[in-house]
């Protein structure tokens, strides 16, 4: 019993309670299903806040660790090990925070098979939280792969016209990557004799050339998930086809699993390879930033634009991570959260207009500010945060990342004149302004041309409720990010120290 009541066990598996309840509901009890899911996810969020209250920011190691032997096989011991530290606490909160919001956003959007939808959604939450908490490679892989299944259905059943294609593509691409990781995991298990991540980091001692191989085996899985250029091709399909809530979670959390993977495994496990190949990662990241920004600018579909903008934003995150210095990494972690908030909010907003007009074509809109002022203002704020306007969350992340990247470049980590990486990335900030303003301008400014839009309803209370928390955080992080940095700073600095940078 005590074991079950371990905070991390609770926060991971509590949604299953909701799942159980859902299983006993009838197909047509839609509201019951909605409320069950909402309550379950809210309680989970509460638990995660409890975890936060227990969390000691000053410590660098794992906290509240749950560590039991799952089973042994031959020479191995496979552990059931959960733990939270500065690297994961924020992402844990982000997950538990976004889930209820997404659920709330589907209140009227999803009418078909509500129960199943909620069921998959809660399962998805279990998987995501597990990914961020698992400290044993085997366990991690289990959660990692498990998240595929519910997302597959969320896209495939409640998605758009091309949903099956998108769902399969999503499933196969991510699985293709993770399977190489599986081999690497097995290799580690064989040659290092354990799957327990802290132990692996502790003993280290993987020869350089092998590190490179393993590094890329892991990177394959994570880079596809992130997605890093040029492995991003599944993203637009998945996003455009997924239902609003799906997009929110996909952009908000699932993509972070990739970057988190780099941070949690690639860098500490294979420090030599990480240093050796940082330039490559940074290069791809920068290409992603510019490429994503440029491509977004030409989209005809709002959701696609945001999808591509994710490629650009996560490029920043990757750049920060592989700056391998405190500024870069902390900025990256914060930027993961920021992207979760901003892009999540953007998808929510797109969902709002889509629910009203059932189209996302730019050509259909224009001058919406006139009819939906509140909606317009909220969108403006979120867009600005996503293009990194100072005073909003996006800026803090991007600035620290660029600062870190520049430093890394200057200290020669990224090869000679490595500062160029930061330079070009910063240029991405300009392009971000270009496509964001293009989006905002074409949708909200200019005269109200399309008469279909003339009597659109502005945000209703439920939509406001879903958005306000996001806005609060957007401002909070933008104006006073210190508490967020304090949560991760010691861990990150310790990590950097162990890298010997």
């Amino acid at each position, binding site marked *: 019993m005590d074991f079950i009541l371990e905070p991390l066990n609770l926060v991971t598996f509590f949604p299953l309670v909701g799942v159980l309840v859902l299983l006993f509901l009838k197909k047509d009890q839609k509201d019951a299903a909605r409320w069950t899911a909402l309550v379950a996810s809210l309680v989970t969020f509460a638990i995660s806040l409890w975890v936060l209250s227990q969390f000691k920011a000053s410590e660098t190691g794992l906290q509240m660790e749950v560590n039991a*032997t*799952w*089973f*042994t*096989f*031959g020479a191995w011991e496979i552990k059931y090990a959960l733990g939270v530290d500065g690297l994961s606490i924020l992402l844990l909160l982000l997950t538990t925070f976004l889930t209820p919001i997404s659920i709330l956003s589907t209140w009227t959007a999803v009418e078909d*098979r509500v129960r*199943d939808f909620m069921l998959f959604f809660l399962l998805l939450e279990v998987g995501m939280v597990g990914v961020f908490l698992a400290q044993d490679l*085997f366990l991690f*892989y*289990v*959660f990692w*792969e*498990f998240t*595929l*299944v519910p997302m*597959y*259905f969320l896209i*495939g*059943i409640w998605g758009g016209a091309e*949903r*099956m294609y998108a*769902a*399969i593509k999503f*499933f*196969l691409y991510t*699985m*293709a990557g993770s*399977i*190489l990781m*599986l*081999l690497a995991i*097995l*290799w580690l*298990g*064989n040659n290092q004799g354990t799957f327990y991540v802290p132990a692996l980091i502790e003993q280290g001692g993987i020869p350089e050339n092998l590190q490179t191989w393993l590094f890329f085996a892991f990177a394959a899985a994570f880079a596809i998930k992130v997605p890093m250029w040029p492995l991003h091709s599944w993203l637009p399909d998945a996003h455009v086809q997924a239902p609003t809530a799906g997009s929110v979670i996909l952009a908000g959390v699932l993509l972070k699993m990739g970057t988190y993977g780099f941070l949690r495994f690639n860098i500490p496990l294979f420090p030599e390879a990480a240093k050796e190949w940082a330039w490559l990662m940074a290069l791809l990241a920068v290409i992603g930033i510019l490429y994503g920004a440029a491509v977004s600018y030409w989209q005809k579909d709002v959701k696609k634009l945001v999808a591509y903008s994710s490629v650009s934003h996560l490029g920043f995150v990757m750049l920060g991570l592989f700056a391998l210095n405190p500024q870069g990494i902390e900025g990256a972690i914060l930027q993961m959260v920021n992207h979760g908030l901003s892009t999540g909010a953007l998808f929510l907003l797109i969902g709002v207009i889509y629910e009203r007009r059932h189209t996302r074509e730019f050509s259909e809109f224009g001058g919406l500010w006139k009819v939906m002022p509140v909606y317009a203002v909220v969108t403006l704020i979120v867009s600005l945060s996503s293009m990194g306007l100072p005073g909003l969350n996006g800026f803090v992340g991007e600035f620290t990342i660029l600062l870190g990247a520049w430093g890394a470049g200057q200290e020669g980590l990224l090869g000679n004149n490595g500062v160029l990486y930061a330079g070009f990335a910063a240029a991405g900030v300009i392009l971000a302004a270009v496509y964001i303003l293009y989006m905002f301008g074409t949708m909200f400014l200019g005269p109200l041309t399309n008469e279909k839009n003339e009597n659109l309803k502005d945000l209703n209370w439920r939509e406001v409720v879903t958005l306000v928390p996001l806005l609060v955080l957007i401002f909070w992080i933008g104006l006073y990010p210190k508490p967020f940095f304090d949560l991760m700073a010691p861990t990150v600095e310790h990590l950097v120290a162990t890298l010997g940078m």
Partner: protein
Amino acid sequence: MSGYTIEDLVNILPIVFVVVWALALLMVEAFTKRRGLTLVLAAVGLLAALFLTVSQFGVETTAFKNMLTVDGYSLFMYVLVLGSGLFSIALAYDYNKRMGWERGEYYVLMLFSIAGAMLMASAANLIVVFLALELLSIPLYILAAFVPNDAASEEAGLKYFLLGAFAGGFVLYGVALIYGATGATDLMAIVSAASTTESPLLLLIGAALILIGLGFKVAVVPFHMWTPDVYQGAPTPVTAYMAVVAKAGGFAALLRVFIAAFPSVSQDLVPVLSALVILTLVIGNLAALAQKNIKRMFAYSSISHAGFIMMAFVTYGQADLYADAVTSVLFYLLAFAVTSFGSWAVVVALEQAEGKGLNLEDYAGLGKKHPALALSMLVFLLSFAGVPPTLGFGGKFFLFRTVLEGGYVGLAIVGVLASLVSAYYYLRVVIYMYFHDGDPEVRSEPVLNFVTAVTAVGTLFLFFMSGPILKWAAESILALI
């Protein structure tokens, strides 16, 4: 009858029991008119045998002058085979009535072939291997052709029979060559003679021929071609039974014979085995992609699973590794058995008379109309595809691990790619079930639902119980090395 004691019988009590029970059933069938009684009795008998087996855990001995070995390994196989027998009887319970060929001999024959499979698991002499193989197969030939006046079923039976006999000829010739090379058919004698033989090539060729013969039974490419046709033609419960027990028996014999008798040739065989594995994985998986008929699809998928198991078998020669290899194979077989029976149960639930309800289209809308059934099917498919948290994933995980331990990275990569491909066609079923609208007709029968539920829960639950299972499997290594 000199030199034999009751001990010999006691040691192989489960087998003896099954056979005797089969005879008894024959009598019952002959002298009662009551349909279905035999079925219940058969189930009872299998349960009892299962019980006997469990009571024998820990026994390590030989019987009948080293003809048979009883050890953890064979006992594990007994459990697997007997369990499979129970499941397939459960599948047949309503099916045969529904299809109208309810006959007691069905179960008698099944019991005989179960005995054959059990014998294969503990055979310590090539003669016994050969005979057990036949005892396993001959009832299967008949069961495959069991449907009266049904061209497909008869054709399946005939094909299976002719090809089986053909392959049997090779096995026999191989045994003959081995006998020629070592002058023995007893595994222990062979392994001791193998070191001193003057004609190693003869031994090698013989071993290869046996490998081919058993490879035919477990459906390894290119000896697999009978599989899809027979699986399609045979009555579904029989197919399910074949898919699991024939494989289990075949691999049981393969592992024991090769590990016990032919470690010397393992290095020479590695390329051959690798080639077979790769062919099997590639062809099995890719061929499955284009199937419209679910039974054929599962046939190909079972072929690919044979390929996976073979992967672990490649490493059998490494003395420090064969234990792990055996463990992972046993685990994989278990996972395959549970998952496979579950999926076949679903197939049975949807099958209509005259082979209707067997196409993928017939699964459209299952997710909406019968969520529970669809959900369990989903679990099975995910397990087949090796997606956590399912038994299938565990099986693949430990399998790949063994392969990597053996240093066959290339094979492992092929393996993972293959499992990726497999995901593709398993997903197609999921798509039909959930993303297409349709109105599938489903037989909701208590026994069937029970099987589905049990296997579905098992597929998930046992994964989390991997610990004990692995422990058990790991203890079940062959005693006679």
